[in-house]
């Protein structure tokens, strides 16, 4: 399971500006006595989860192929740097053939046993216009698996951020619309109350993993609006990791879930008893009926 913890070589590949910022964030984490951090990356298939992981690590750690589902099992990438360890868990897509892939979810759950999730990166594409039922189902499935709390530890990552919006919308307007609609889906899917949801304050980060991503003057990968997105992402991650919420610890119980077969088991004798009494009642009613009708006509 646990892949070998390696020195974070890729970190050196980042532009100096990025390295600086990242170091800053990690230092912040260390201050909070967090020497390691686990990031779970989830999302539908083909939205760029693995690419995001690669971007984040700065190495091609996870195989990415454009059309192929990247893998059927979760993969954890661990990198250590200056005593700080970051674990990133890449997961298979959660959707297949129009259904939520519960099998994959089970695999993920199994993989996470006895781990603590500090941050969930929920990945989707920015350049898709519509949110549909499947998105809701995915959110729902995640909620069911890890509980509503997971969403308090979530960063929404929107990939393919380097594009020009249609219909003459401005980039900002489009991206905020898109992220709003996704957040709304998450809220609905997680069945969170509005207040609760607002408290959780899911951060949104835009990402562009493509090699064609434009770079800013500091050689950082930048979005159309000029922001360097990797530091943004790391910042959001650290923010979430250090927020007041408890990290999600995946224990055996959570993995096994409540056995639905056991649900209501205790009611069985009760129902049997009720049946008996109902039977008695009916019999009594019938007897009564017979008595009444049995009287001389």
């Amino acid at each position: 399971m646990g892949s070998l913890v390696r020195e974070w070589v890729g970190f050196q590949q980042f532009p100096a500006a990025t390295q600086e910022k990242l170091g800053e964030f990690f230092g912040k984490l260390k201050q909070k006595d967090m020497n390691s951090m686990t990031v779970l990356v989830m999302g539908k298939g083909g939205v760029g989860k693995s690419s995001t992981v690669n971007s984040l690590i700065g190495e091609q750690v996870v195989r990415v192929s454009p059309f192929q589902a990247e893998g059927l099992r979760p993969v954890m990438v661990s990198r250590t740097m200056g005593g700080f360890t970051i674990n990133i868990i890449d997961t298979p897509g959660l959707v297949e053939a129009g259904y939520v892939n519960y099998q994959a979810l089970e695999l993920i759950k199994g993989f996470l046993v006895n781990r603590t999730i500090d941050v969930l990166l929920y990945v989707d594409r920015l350049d898709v216009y519509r949110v549909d039922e499947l998105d809701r189902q995915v959110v729902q499935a995640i909620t069911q698996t890890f509980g509503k709390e997971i969403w308090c530890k979530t960063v929404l990552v929107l990939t393919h951020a380097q594009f020009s919006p249609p219909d003459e919308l401005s980039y900002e307007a489009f991206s905020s619309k898109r992220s709003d609609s996704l957040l709304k889906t998450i809220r609905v899917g997680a069945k969170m109350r509005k207040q609760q949801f607002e408290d959780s304050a899911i951060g949104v980060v835009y990402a562009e993993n493509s090699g064609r991503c434009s770079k800013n003057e500091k050689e950082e990968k930048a979005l159309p609006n000029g922001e360097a997105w990797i530091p943004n992402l790391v910042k959001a991650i650290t923010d979430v990791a250090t927020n007041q919420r408890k990290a999600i610890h995946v224990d055996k119980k959570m993995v096994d879930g409540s056995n639905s077969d056991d649900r209501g088991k205790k009611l069985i004798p009760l129902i049997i008893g009720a049946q008996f009494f109902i039977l008695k009642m009916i019999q009594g009613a019938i007897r009564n009926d017979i008595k009444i009708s049995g009287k001389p006509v």
Partner: protein
Amino acid sequence: MDSKAVTPEQNPFYASGPSGKTYASVVAAAAAASKEGVAVSSAKEFDSSSEAVSGNSEKGIVGGADNLSDTEKEKEEKSSLEAGGDGKISDEGDSLKEDSVTPEAASSLSPKPDVVSEKTIGEDGVGVTEENTKVEERADDIENDGETKLENGSVDVGEKQPSREEIVDENLEMEREESGEVENKVKGVEEEAVGSKKDEEVPRGDGTDEEESELSGKVDVDDKRDDVIEEEGEKLTNKGDFSVDSSTIESVHVDVAKPGVAVVGEVEGSEEMKIKADGENLEVANKFDQIGDDDGGGFDLESDKAIEGVEEKLATGADSSELESADTNAAESEAVESGTEPNDVEEGNGSEKSVTYAEVIKADRAVADNGTKEEESGFSGVVDDEEERVNKADSVVDSSVMESVHVDVAKPGVVVVGDVEGSEVLETDGNIASVHNKFDPVGQVEGDGLELQSDKATEEGVKNLTSEGDSNVNSSAVETVDADINVAEPGVVVVGVPKEAETKEDDDGAGEVDKAIPNIEKADDLTAAYDGNFELAAKETSEAVRVEPDEPKVDVKEEEEDLPVSESLTVKEDSKPAAESQFEANSNPEVREVSEGDNAEEGGSKSPVADIVSSREFSVESKEVDQEPSGEGIIGVDGSESEEETEEMIFGSSEAAKQFLAELEKASGIEAHSDEANISNNMSDRIDGQIVTDSDEDVDTEDEGEEKMFDSAALAALLKAATGGGSSEGGNFTITSQDGTKLFSMDRPAGLSSSLRPLKPAAAPRANRSNIFSTPNVAMVEESEVNLSEEEKQKLEKLQSLRVKFLRLLQRLGHSAEDSIAAQVLYRLAILAGRQTGQLFSLDAAKKKAVESEAEGNEDLNFSLNILVLGKAGVGKSATINSILGNPKASIDAFGLSTTSVREISETVGGVKITFIDTPGLKSAAMDQSANAKMLSSVKKVMKRCPPDIVLYVDRLDTQTRDLNNLPLLRTITASLGTSIWKNAIVTLTHSASAPPDGPGGSPLSYDVFVSQCSHIVQQSIGQAVGDLRVMNPSLMNPVSLVENHPLCRKNREGVKVLPNGQTWRPQLLLLCYSLKVLSEANSLLKPQEPLDHRKVFGFRVRAPPLPYLLSWLLQSRAHPKLPADQGGDSVDSDIEIDDVSDSEQEDGEGDEYDQLPPFKPLRKTQLAKLSKEQRKAYFEEYDYRVKLLQKKQWKEELKRMKEMKKNGKKVGESVFGFPGEEEDPENGGPAAVAVPLPDMVLPPSFDSDNSAYRYRFLEPTSQLLTRPVLDTHGWDHDCGYDGVNAEHSLAIASRFPATATVQVTKDKKEFNIHLDSSVSAKHGDSGSTMAGFDIQNVGKQLAYVVRGETKFKNLRKNKTTLGGSVTFLGENVATGVKLEDQIALGKRFVLVGSTGTMRSQGDSAYGANLEVRLKEADFPIGQDQHSLGLSLVKWRGDLALGANLQSQVSVGRHSKIALRAGLNNKMSGQITVRTSSSDQLQIALTAILPIVMSIYKSLRPEGVNDKYSMY
């Protein structure tokens, strides 16, 4: 392939079946060849010898034909016959001449066009002379025959000319042994002329002819056949010719397993067929010729001894070969024989395509018959057949629509060459010309026959044939013929041989040539006569043919006598060298050489011919000559040259084959009957050798070998032909023509020849051939146009207009016709138009017209496009529509649902009215598919109003993954709109300007890879969703078009959006749409019948009656209605056995018990309640006992009464009618027995008046009309079991025939059913009863009307038998059924019922049987316990359904009854019903609670699970 070699004889034909017509034609030709065998061979020889010969032969033939017509049997009267022939024959003769000429002509023509024209003729003449010599001996008889045949043929020809296809039988009568399978490559038809042995083969050949005729000009053929009937062989051939006309056969494969098979003939036949396709008339003629050859072949084979017979056969064959005229004659003779054979043929047909095949088969058989008659020398006959075939081939060539001919000759002596030649001839000849050619071959055939019979006669015939052949050749412009020749055995004369033969003949003729010329002159007279005949048949073509043949014929006659065998021998020798040289040189040089060797004239003529032939032969051989069977070294020469080349080669070979055949025939004739067999063998051997050589083009060497073999001029000719053709056949064959007695002797065994033949490729000849053929082709095209039927023309015109339209659209879009898509469309249009490439359908003309109309500014294209747009939400459907239309007609919104309902958007774009059906986005979640389906159903409504031509399935290019997320919605689309929706679907990928993602290496993919990957993913998904491989055939893969709607999309200078790959997507997409629409329009234009047929077939299937159901309905045993007087009596089907009556009578004492009991007072319930438990028990016991006794008593009284009635019945007669119920004891209210003429409803076993069942009890015995509710007896709650009304009426018609009618109408939530049963019965005495009935009932959504009748008789005391039948009308279907039922009573309690029946409808039948054992309680009517065990068996469509049924009804206690029904079938599905009815055991009802609760619980509990795992 041919290799299939179905059963020897018939099978081949069947095999040919696939290409129906072509095969048939081929077979027919073969048959003809077989019949005329000798004549054919001679004809071939003549051909080979040269055109001049053909002319002679014609004359001779004509004469012969006349004679024959007058007195076919009178062979001796040659002169008289001939004269008659001129007059009568003129028609016939023409036809014959044509036939004979065709082979020769084909050969000569093929060569001539290229190189020699006049020269070849001269050669022919020489050849003719030789033949004539041979012929002379037999000529008289043959001539007579031929003439008669000719007459018939001529008549037929007239009819046939329009369209005739002949399939030449591969096998010679003698040696077809296995199977000459001719496959028409074009149609893919394979003929297996496995003729298993000669006789069979020959018949087959005839059969084929017939079949062909039927196919092409069926009516005409029939007529011809009649004529033919006189001469069986001839008729067949004629028919064959007709078939050829229809021929669309593209390729013909002939496998000849046995020796002596005339593969060539078959090939020729196929060729002919092709020709017919082009020009009907011409083709027909060719066919006739071939037929004639076949006939001749048959003769040879059959009769060595009976020369006369042979002659006759030959003559007949000639007639057939003549096709038009000959056919009639042949038909006559053949018909006689065929009488028996036809039947066989028909049988064979059944298996295959049926009509055509069957016909062919018949024809074949007929041929066989002829063959048998002639039969003496089967081997020789084979050769003849080959020749005939060759002739046919020639004709085919003329019509040449054939593309490739494969000839496999397994055994020796097969004249493969002949086939090849035939094909060549066809090619060379123009359509009309080809017709002539055909005639000529026929003439040759006849001539051959004559030769066999009389040398003189044969010579004439040969000459005629040759001349005709020449003419044909000239006209014929075969485009491409692929000939595959496989010669397994030695001695097969492949292509090369024929040529050689020709050359040889020529050589022989050297001396003879002079004679031949004079003969020709004489022939002129004859020709005149013939011409008249020809006109009748095929006017123009026939005339031309006639003229040519006539001359040759005359010469031939003269020559015949003059030139003895010896001369021929010498000539042969000379010719051989010449031929070799010719072959080598291929062209003129060779000819000259030949001429040198031989007389100048002969050589000259020969050389050209030889050259041509050789070249052709060579090509053929090189192409596909596989001599697998023969170990002789005929190594499968697969020379796969260009198609054209191959064709040419084939022709050459065919010619050569013809020559050989002719020679062989002659030889056989000369040799006399005894020798014929030998000759045939020799021939076969030679053939093999030739084949080998042909394949490699080692003709020269082979030829040499052959030359040795050949003694006579015929041999020489063969050699020449072989050499010229490039076939080394000559080498193998040693043709020794003794003085007219023995034409050929095969020195080597069939198997040995192969070793001798070296394979040498001759490339030069091919080139020459190609040149030669090029011009003829053009001519052909024109002719083909001329010959187009009105219908075809209309189609072509429509296609053309479509093409113009498309070109205009192209122009408007700024695309050129060279654009890949456009080019494809145009190509497909051209394919759809078939090979018609003439003025009517020329691309250039279309282009010109398109440019013109565009220049005129004619906006109206009369072209509209309906486009349905489907796709996921948010992929850009509406945006795409906007982009295509160029203005924002559809509202779009990136985030919202912009399109909420199905909308139509129309606009005219570039003169085309485009209507888009815009749809709301589909949802990809599997859970949302019902919403999708709903949306799609509204799409469907719109589609009905506005059927879409094109469906755009829109998706995004940049979101493609392999997670199959689109599968659910694609499946929904498929399910809602049908798989056909994908047929004209274009996958449209939007966002196509987005940058490709990074590849595995981290570097971005190339755009093209990206696009192709995405396209593949989408197409694959569609394929998976459709699940239909037919739809997803790679070639039908939905085209993909890219779309970019983004306003920032890059644009080119014209402001047109450009994709990253530089494509301008909008015009591209429009072009794709136009193309698809144009193609589908073209398809629907050309094949309107096919889809209709499919639908019809499909519909039939859907509506096929449910036979098993009808069967079970039929098998049901029914009670016959009875006259009231008979109620309960011992009418035949009474449920109560008389035994019971008597038995019960014996218990009278017991019965009286009831009366002796003390009075019993029933207690009221209140009183009962007061009783103690014991008292109550005792009371009930007593009560039950008394009830039982009472019932028994009543029953016995009833029986007694019935018995009384029975006794008095005769006296009382029917006057008793109407008594029922009136005498009823008032006491009997409870168990009312007899009064109610209805079956009682199930009543509770006790007399509980509270039971609701009694509420529906109607006691109206006096009314004849009874109405009551229908109780669903299988329901749980009988109170709620009423779902219908039943009315029943019974009456007696005429006081004698009791009738009942029952109507039951039931209706529940799902369906409404009506069911009418009515029946009338009549009693026959005490032991018989007949019932007729009429039922109406629902079967599915249709009403089935059943008329049924059955008779039941009691044949033993305890045995009753029923016979019945029914006819069911269900929609358009009629199902008939028969049943047999038997019922045996074993003792009082056991009844055994067995029934069996069958139901049949539209060739579909169901068989069923039932067996039932019933066990009743001892005191049955009173005790209600009974059990029955039934077994049923139904077989339908190969499906065997076995079912067992157990029914048991038992009383439990005094108030309860349990009924158990259990059924199980062999599919391991079954049901068990336990019904308990009780009047006082309430707690039993509670037992039901448990399962109910359990099921409720189960349905509740899984919900929790579902919540979590609902996805699974």
